[in-house]
């Protein structure tokens, strides 16, 4: 009985290991060409969230907050553009972006009606106090 069990265990283990076929191969995940960029983008996004939170609980001066936020937003925009470029959609975003007049108009448009914070890009909600921002609020 023991010998039979031993034979079964040994042959079973060895055959299971060695007898592999192509049909047993799983379809591998398709690595995204922008995976490291997406990872970086998420990191910046999380940093922005932390920055806003730290500012809200008074760990940062106004000046440091604005400076760090601007830097992060710049970086976020750069990475977003790079991702688009890799994916072949760069033209719309960067090369054929808004005209300076449009950008100026955009900047002018977004000020929070509640706390007065100004944002250079249109937002549906204030990044400072969370109040809804309507286009007409400008």
């Amino acid at each position, binding site marked *: 009985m023991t010998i039979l069990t031993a034979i079964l265990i040994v042959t079973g283990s060895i055959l299971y290991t060695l007898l592999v076929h192509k049909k047993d191969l799983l379809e591998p995940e398709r690595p995204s060409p922008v995976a490291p960029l997406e990872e970086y983008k998420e990191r910046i996004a999380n940093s922005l969230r932390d920055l806003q939170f730290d500012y809200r609980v008074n760990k940062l001066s106004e000046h440091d907050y604005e400076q760090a936020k601007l830097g992060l937003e710049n970086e976020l925009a750069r990475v977003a553009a790079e991702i688009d470029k890799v994916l072949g959609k760069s033209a719309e975003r960067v090369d054929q972006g808004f005209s300076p007049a449009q950008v100026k108009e955009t900047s002018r448009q977004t000020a929070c009606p509640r706390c007065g914070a100004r944002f250079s890009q*249109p937002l549906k909600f204030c990044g400072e106090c969370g109040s809804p921002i309507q286009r007409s609020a400008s």
Partner: protein
Amino acid sequence: MENLGSLALLIAFCLAVYAVASSVIGGWAHKPLLVLSAKRAVYAIWFLLTIASFLLVHALLSGDFRLAYVAANSNRAMPGLYKFAAWWGGQEGSLLLWSWLLSCYSAIVVYVNRAKHRGIMPYLIATLMVTQVFFLILNAFVASPFRVLAVGREITAVPDGNGLNPLLQYWAMAIHPPMLYLGYVGFVVPFAFAMGSLITRQQGDAWIHTTRRWTLVIWLFLSCGILLGAGWAYAVLGWGGYWGWDPVENASLLPWLTATAFLHSVMVQEKRGMMKVWNMVLISATFLLCIFGTFLTRSGVVSSVHAFAESSIGKYFLSFLAIVIGVTSYLIITRLDYLKSDARMESVISRESSFLFNALILIASCLAILWGTLFPAISQAITGEKISVDATFFNRMNVPIGLFLLFLLGMGPLFAWRRTSLESLRRNVFVPGIAAALFVAALMAAGVRHPYALVSFGLCLFVIWTIAAEFYKGARAIGARTGRNLLFSVVELTHRNTRRYGGYIVHMGVVLMFLGFTGAAFNKQATMEVNVGGAFTLDHYVLRVASLREGDTDNYAWDRAVVEVSRNGSPLSRLEPERRFYKASRQAVSEVAIRHRLDEDLYLNFAGFTEDGSKAVIQAYVFPLVSWIWIGFLILIMGTLVCLVPSKTKFQPPQTHMAGATREYAPASK
């Protein structure tokens, strides 16, 4: 049966060697079928080791005293739980447990990631299986648990075994070693991911994202193992201490320190893309220290209360450690280009710098403990004379380090990522700082003079205050927006960023543990020889020996002192410390009696009788605040579990309208 066990170990060893070869060749030559075959070998090894473990446990439970391991570590009268625990009570069994746990982890990792990480998977399997090969060499050829007793060429059996070491016959011992081993073994997984990432020169932080939760769970296992060990020492060894800086205790603390440093510094890599080399070094050091811990426990190279097994397997461990150190160092040095930071430290007053400080302090503590632990062995090797290092050295080194860490626990939450304004830091430190100073002044007025205790109490209050303030400020901001009460807001806040607030809860647990450690500065003790009816006083307790009893079980004979405890004339409780004499191993151990309270424990040990047998020897101790160590530990577990819960919200950048911002903000990049 024993032949089947040995055969299973032998085939598992062969398959592990095959898995290393096929995964490396498959990865290098891009042969997915070879890698698949290596994956299957991992499952087969798990199956074979499960069979071997089952056979050993069956032999222990059924009392198959033909096996040398069973005869040495079990006996008929032992309760079933301890017969099962004898699996890891001796060297051969515990090495088999190591191997089996490793095979479980390997099988889980390979299964969960069967369609992921295609690039690093072959090398990840190779790393896991190299470790498996090492342990299977020990299991199959050096310390086999299936050796039989023989007279000449004839297999024989002893009528009964020696039984498990009586010190190990305690309920926590059924959990403590497996927990510790789950931690020790588990760190091979993040290490294997790190090696896979290094070998394949991966640029992203994928291995960190994949192993983050895994590392946290393993860290929790290791923490549980260490604390259960401390609880065991407190309740079983009879001297009332929970930590004696024993080499094997130290060996479990070393990887915990580096793993804690890793858990913190890995956040800097995730947030800022910094400290990549540092993280590689830390996770490698953690894995190496886990192997080193097993080596210390099992080799008998240093004398320890845990020296349950002494043998010559040390040279195998040292060889394996040397190989791993060599390969890891080579990989890190040759891949430095891929480990460059994405950003630089913007300010010393920032969260990342506080994490760096924290890691440095933990490493300093680790090195100090490592040096103290190895010093007797090193001194013997160099001078031929063994110079022992006692607890005083470790306390002198680690108490100031611990207090500085406590200080950092308080300061950490006050720092923002990137940079913190001095003004806000001053504002946030001011109130808790004043509160801590006032508290210390009040303690001094109350007569407390111990300098380290005063600093520790002050820092404990400081840290509790800053953490509570973090929760309060965050919850208030949420409450203002949602209109919900503070409790809801605290829960919501924690759920929104479980990692941050779970971490704070862990810190809170650590602070409470520090509170308990600080109580040791005020311990009191008395050893008295008393007759039945005799009484003595310790601190504000009056202890009267009401009676002495004796009895017998199949496993041990016992003597018990019934001690009535009173304070200011009013009875408090009745404690019954016991002295047991285990028949199989012919060893005596104490079963202490403890009156647990939040302010202090009263701890009685029945040390036996005087030489003439007329009086009972009672050792009595008062341990202030010690309960807070166990409470803090429960909070630490709770906080770690919170960290494992996915956060509720993720920051979503306003992508749709980013075009304008891109144009405006990024002219230089064009």
